[in-house]
């Protein structure tokens, strides 16, 4: 299935959960947060949050700033 991460398409296996986005992108979850349809998803729910085709995911991470 295909989802959108910050507007960019990402291909995932059917039945993927939110945690699989990190795995697919090869990044650790530290400094990362997700929202789906503007709802912030708590970290301990990443492994149980099932994604659907076309899901609109916002993914942020730490950046330099003052």
């Amino acid at each position, binding site marked *: 299935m295909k989802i959108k*991460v910050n507007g960019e398409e990402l291909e995932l296996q059917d039945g993927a959960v939110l945690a699989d986005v990190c795995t697919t*992108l090869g*990044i650790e979850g530290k400094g990362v947060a997700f929202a789906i349809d503007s709802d912030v998803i708590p970290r301990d729910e990443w492994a149980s949050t099932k994604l659907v085709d076309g899901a609109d995911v916002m993914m*942020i991470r730490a950046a*330099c*700033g003052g």
Partner: protein
Amino acid sequence: MSKLIIAGREFNSRLFLGTGKFSSNDLMKESIIASETEMVTVAMKRISLGDANDDMLKHIVDKNIQLLPNTSGVRDAKEAVFAAKMSREAFGTNWLKLEIHPDPRYLLPDSIETLKATEELVKLGFVVLPYCQADPVLCKRLEEAGAATVMPLAAPIGSNKGLRTEDFLKIIIEQSNVPVVVDAGIGAPSHAAAAMELGADACLVNTAVAVAGDPVRMAKAFRDAVICGREAYEAGLGAVTAGEAVASSPLTSFLG
């Protein structure tokens, strides 16, 4: 120098350091170490799938450092609350530098939205350190809303202009029951020392260190300036006279 206490946590350093504008992650890392800061601000950005491996957090190595995520980029209280919730998940901390500056030209904080967001975020359990105008009335309102500190600006962000709001900072420091952190516009160690001599509890510096010719040496200079200014404040500065000299040496009984 006495310890700084914010929301029950003790800090040995009274210098907060921002992580923006460094020319490399190595320089940022070395500057953080040289500054001996225990509070470092970080921002958030949307991941681009092309550069998903760009992790700045691995350059903040001291486990004793309190991360202070900011809400830069939000335009109102509603967006700030959303950003705060995202930052809590991303960084595993409920500490937050609340900054709401919808105007990209001067980056001046929106006082009304900042107060509104502070009220809401405190209720949600955040430790809120709001970046705000050097407005003594607003700072009292933020304190009453439960802000852990107030962080009035010295001058516009990144301007390096120094304590342009000095008269108002003095009033804020006199009246505040929460720590006063002078944020934004501090461009030289002398500015930081001056703020600390006024009785500010801490200074937040970013641009002045990051864009210095040698950021690591400048970080040390700010470290020392903040200590010197605080020491002078705690030691008790002498009174300023009206203008006439007051001799420090005896003027009589020498040559008759």
